[in-house]
């Protein structure tokens, strides 16, 4: 017997696959030196692969409506939030440097970690609805 509605699980699985692909593509670009808005960052790229793997590992469980699948989805969302918030704070720090006069120009780098985090928020809301009753 599934732990939650398999229809919802299917939608979340598709979302998780899309996010996983997004993280893999961004990771590849970061590892191989960056392009456009995506900077070159080997370790950052590897971290994106880890997030992608976390999302994708949970897909079979989500399709079957199992708690196990939800675990990987929550793990992926947590990692997305950690990296997304990290680089949003980094933008704030760059802005502060500019305000105090330590930096000559204001450079705003909207890394893929930020927009992938923002894209993951509707999924996070869906997971929150499913886990509202869960205790620590």
């Amino acid at each position, binding site marked *: 017997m599934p*732990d939650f509605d398999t229809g919802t699980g299917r939608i979340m699985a598709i979302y998780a696959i899309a996010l996983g692909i997004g993280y893999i593509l961004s990771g590849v670009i970061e590892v191989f030196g960056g392009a456009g808005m995506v*900077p*070159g*960052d*080997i*370790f*950052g790229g*590897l*971290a994106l692969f*880890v*997030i992608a*793997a*976390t999302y994708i*590992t*949970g897909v079979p469980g989500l399709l079957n409506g199992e*708690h*196990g699948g*939800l*675990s*990987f989805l*929550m*793990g992926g969302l*947590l*990692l997305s939030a*950690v*990296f997304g918030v*990290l*680089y949003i*704070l*980094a933008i704030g*720090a760059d802005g*502060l*440097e500019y305000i*105090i*006069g*330590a930096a000559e120009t204001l450079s705003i780098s909207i890394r893929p970690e930020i927009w992938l985090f923002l894209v993951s928020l509707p999924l996070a809301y869906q997971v929150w609805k499913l*886990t509202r009753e*869960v*205790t*620590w």
Partner: protein
Amino acid sequence: MNEYSGEDLEVVFPERRYEAIAKIMETAVRVRKERKWTFTDILDHVFLHRVLGIPIFLALLYAVFQFTFAISAPFSDMIDLSFGWLGSLAGANISNPMLASFVADGVCAGLGSVLVFIPPIFILFFALAILEDSGYLARAAFVMDRAMYKLGLHGRSFIPLITGFGCNIPAIMATRSIENENDRIITILVNPLMSCSARLPVYVLLAGVIFSTSYVAGAAVFSMYVLGIALAVMSALVFRKTLFRGKPAPFVLELPRYAVPGLKSVTLHMWERGKWFLIKAGTFIFAVVIVAWALSTFPWAATAGGELIENSYIAMFGHVIEPLFRPFGWNWQSAVALFFGFLAKEAVVGTFGALLGAEGEGVNIALANAHWFTPLSGFAYMVFVLIYFPCVATIGVMLKELRPRWVLFAAMYTLILAFVVASLVMAIGHLAGLA
């Protein structure tokens, strides 16, 4: 008893205890419905995963160092601007040139160049406190145990090793929780390879100078921590296979529930661990930078009041030890900074400040303009600082915990390892055309 029972009692006792608890629970506690799935179950399912557990831990560790590096920069700049203003104020208003040099170049420049690292150190401790208070750090110990056991380290060694990222002194004291003497000695011997926060200022300074983008600099700093862990586990494996034959004792750990970390608790943890840096900066490091200033300024007449450092006592000493480091492309100033780094690792930065006549973030600019390091030689220097000699205070604690011969062994093997690994970095860099 182990031999008699044929089982390891350190494992058997907790197992029997939990079996007894489970039996009592069955009879004494009435469960109305099926046990509910909790957040702790949900998160443990992924964070303790056999395959993903370690990569997730490494990804989070990387986030911690990026957080430290990116967020601290404006706060360091504020401290730098304050000390720069104080230094120029002292230089302009003190008529006695020797006193003016002491206040501006010794006190303000020396202390300022160390205090700019308060933000990264406190932010690093803040991030580690979040991981600890959330209950994740205990999970990290758990996921690392399998790998650590294979590499000859006890699972309980993980907490002292992670503590070593903050400071090797409490980390070495924390090894007292390891009951098996051989496991404890191995953990202490490899602990200085865990990159303590005193080394962070050196990495931040050099990575900022030799790499143009902050992401690459952040990755270079992170690589020091990864290299430290790799060398620690490799050294432990070698020690286990040669000096301390046998298997590590089994590891039993009770995992706490996950929790949302409270701001007050995290801030208190950060302060408890970070305040030693303020104390050390105000006492020991301050004394070291004053000695570095005096040695780089005297004889007063010969150096024209610190203007001609080539004629100073520190230059004479630097030229004596420079040949040891010449193969790495490091000049006498860099060699002298390593010498003072033996007293306290942060003093490497203070010494650069004194030798360059710069303070705070100005040391970055002065060091970049001096062209003392290429990216390769600078990276090799970071590697050397990571590995060579534990600092004096760490040696002192090791002497309390180990026999003197082991302390001497730790000092010698880290020094030899530093030369070997830095040479390898240079050789690989030359072969890769990075020279």
